[in-house]
């Protein structure tokens, strides 16, 4: 049986390495452009490590068992009458419990940090309407394009004039529905300049797929100029 365990571990390691290669060779997440998304990516990798371990374990046992204990169709013997094992059953109740609670705690901490507004964030109102976005910076500045200064926390207050929409910039990793009748909020702290896309992710009718807007992250000076320009 010792030889069997070694073989099982070998299969598990091979599967683990293959899955790890899939996880690291492809860039599964968009390059982060916000501080919030950096923290989200940390949990993503934490969950990925756990997932690789569990998937490798389960599939290794399945592959190993079939390889080792497969019998021809006319075999008519039974296996050993093993009904259970209290220690094992306790282990596979307790260990996953610890793992998921760890993910839960990490997630709750990140959620709290991503929801903490610092001092005087830039207030932007985002209004969804079939099938456009409108960004209101102040009474006299309204834009169809989202422009944000880099490094400055922005708080979006969202609503919709018709149906439910959802505001998402993949590189910011932050998303929130714009719901008619209520206001919702979300924080984004852009950490690099560049051009991104605002995507609507809640089915909102026949134009849903085309409900996109441009998002630009610029330096504070460029942002101030842009605001002036809009006012003029």
């Amino acid at each position, binding site marked *: 049986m010792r030889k069997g365990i070694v073989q099982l571990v070998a299969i598990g390691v091979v599967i683990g390495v293959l899955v790890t290669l899939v996880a690291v060779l*492809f860039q*599964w*997440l968009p390059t982060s452009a916000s501080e919030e998304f950096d923290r*989200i990516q940390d949990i*993503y990798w934490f*969950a990925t490590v*756990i*997932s690789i371990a*569990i*998937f490798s374990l*389960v599939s290794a*046992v*399945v592959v190993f*068992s*079939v390889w080792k*204990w*497969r*019998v021809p*169709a006319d*075999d008519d013997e*039974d*296996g*050993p*009458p*093993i009904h*259970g094992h209290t220690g094992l*059953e306790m282990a*596979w*109740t307790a260990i996953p419990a610890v793992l*998921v*609670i760890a*993910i*839960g705690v990490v*997630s*709750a901490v990140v*959620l709290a940090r*991503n929801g903490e507004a610092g001092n005087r964030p830039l207030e932007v109102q985002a209004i969804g309407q079939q099938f456009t976005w409108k960004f209101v910076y102040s009474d006299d500045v309204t834009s169809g394009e989202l422009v944000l200064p880099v490094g400055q926390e922005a708080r979006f207050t*969202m609503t919709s004039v*018709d*149906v*439910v929409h*959802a505001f998402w910039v*993949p590189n910011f990793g*932050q*998303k*929130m*529905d714009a*719901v*008619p*009748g*209520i206001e919702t909020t979300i924080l984004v702290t852009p950490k690099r300049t560049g051009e991104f*896309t605002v*995507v*609507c992710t809640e*089915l909102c*009718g*026949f134009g*849903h*797929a*085309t409900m996109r807007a441009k998002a630009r992250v610029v330096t504070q000076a460029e942002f101030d100029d842009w605001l002036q320009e809009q006012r003029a």
Partner: protein
Amino acid sequence: MTATHQASSYGDEYPAHFEPPHGPTRQLLFGPGLVRGGWMAGLFFVLGTLLILGLRWWWSWDPVWETEIVLAIAGMVTAPIGFLAGIGSFDYWLHYISGRPTRPEDHSGHGARSWKDYFRVNTDHKVIGIQYLVTTFFFFTVGGLLAMFFRAELAQPGLQFVDSQTFNGLVSVHATLMIFLFVIPAFAGLANFAVPLMLGAPDMAFPRLNALSFWLLPVAGVMFLASFLAPGGAFGAGWTGYAPLAEGQPLGQTFFNMGVQWAGASSIMTALNFLVTIITMRAPGMTFWRMPLLVWANFTTSLLVVIATPFIAGSQFFVMFDRILHTSFFTPEGGGYVLGYQHIFWFYSHPAVYIMMLPGFGIVSEVISAMSRKPIFGYRLMALSLLGILVLGFSVWAHHMFVAGMADWLRVPMMITTLLIAIPTGIKVFSWIATLWRGRIHLTTPMLFALGFVTMFVIGGLSGIYLGSVPIDIHASDTYFIVAHIHYVLFGGSVFTIFAGVYYWFPKMTGRMYDERLGKIHFWLTFVSFNATFFPMHYVGLRGMPRRVFDYEAAFGDLNFVITIASFVLGVSFIVFVYNIMLSWVRGPIAESNPWRARTLEWQVSSPPPIFNFDEIPQVVAGPYEYGVPGARHAVMSPAKEAPEVHA
């Protein structure tokens, strides 16, 4: 089919409770059946229409003719009732109510004497089980074709074949058919066939109710499909039908609102039937701790159905009332609360995920134990973990709403309960692989699908952990990552287990064996093309492609093309299944009564089973999975001759 010969004698012994109409023509027109169902549906449609027009005219409402209201009431309430009355679902009850004599032991509508009996109201749970499966696989085919159609559209960015509203309709009807007309009722069909046999019962507790539950399904299915004919096209607000989008949709949305009522009523009635059957009709000695895990799974599922389904019924009625009665449950202008819809909807639709999974857990437990020749590892913990999922399943619905703008404080508690569900689910997965350990493994087609399920479901479960974590969900919600996740759970999970169950019980249902080689080809084609279709969706989703879009960024073009090709192969793999099943049903080799040498009761009777299942009531003496225990038996079939020896 062989069942017919065994059945014929009963029809003569037990005459029908009332005289059939005289003469073949009158019998055809006025006897219960599809012809009477057809004209009565028409008649009731006219009656419903006249009622509405009469009332509107009486109150001088303008216009007297309002298409949506006529369709909703006459088309989707009275006409289906006419159809159900016509095929004879209510005949016995109406006779009873009207005071005419009825025979309690009337079995004229029980069992199939010819293939035609499958198109009638039949009270035999084995016939109903097959009726369910054939019907649900029909809708599976339609739903799959719809999916291939919109996958063709998605092969390239931009619009090629259909307009955007039609695209939304295809996506919505695909999901609706797969959920309400395939996964949920296919499990109900398998359980209908297997559960009474496994319990040692002659039938379900309420056979007439069972027949009615089945006939509600085609009503719902036709309604969903007919929405394509409605002006404005099929309902296009997704299977989730979020308000207020659904309230401003064209007429097709009403077909969804009402179709869900019929499918839901079918589910609830079947679930009640299962509960009463499992509680009251167990054979002597069949304690709860000796029930096969499939029975446990359906017991738990039925509790979920009975408690949760009224919520989706309510949510769809409210949307329809907003649409046609101008109430404002979910319209903010009238003081309605938009998120209220999502809360009510998910209070059903999250438990529904377990309704669509737990029966599969049961099937896989049966298959893995029988094919590994070993007792299920940790039987009691397996049953208890089902109950754990049942309880936790009602406390997680708002994890579908992490980005919906609901009360902030709800997020963390719902995240914790969601993550905790991984524990009972993990127990099940680990127990299955422990059952394999040191077994004598027969790699038959049902076993391949069961093992395919275990590995694929783990992927679906692990992507569920990502989505359970609120911050990751904020990024991944409403993207193709969700589409990948639900297909790993519902296709790699539920559909694989349905295939496992169909292959496993096929010899019992038909008395014939399927072709093992074709079964294996079917499995490998499905397994590979399934992964090629759905695994890349994780990637495009995380990278930024939202779900339910006909157009997307050009960067995702290549992968979407690959996905589309893979989805076509997946479609082709299903043809192998259909060919195998149809051919084997007609001329497969005659099956033994117990080809898997399984211990549960359905395998201790002939294939197909006798019309009332057991010639003598079995006496259950031990658990159902005592493989390898010398001399152990699950039941003895003739208690008078053999003294029951109690194990366990």
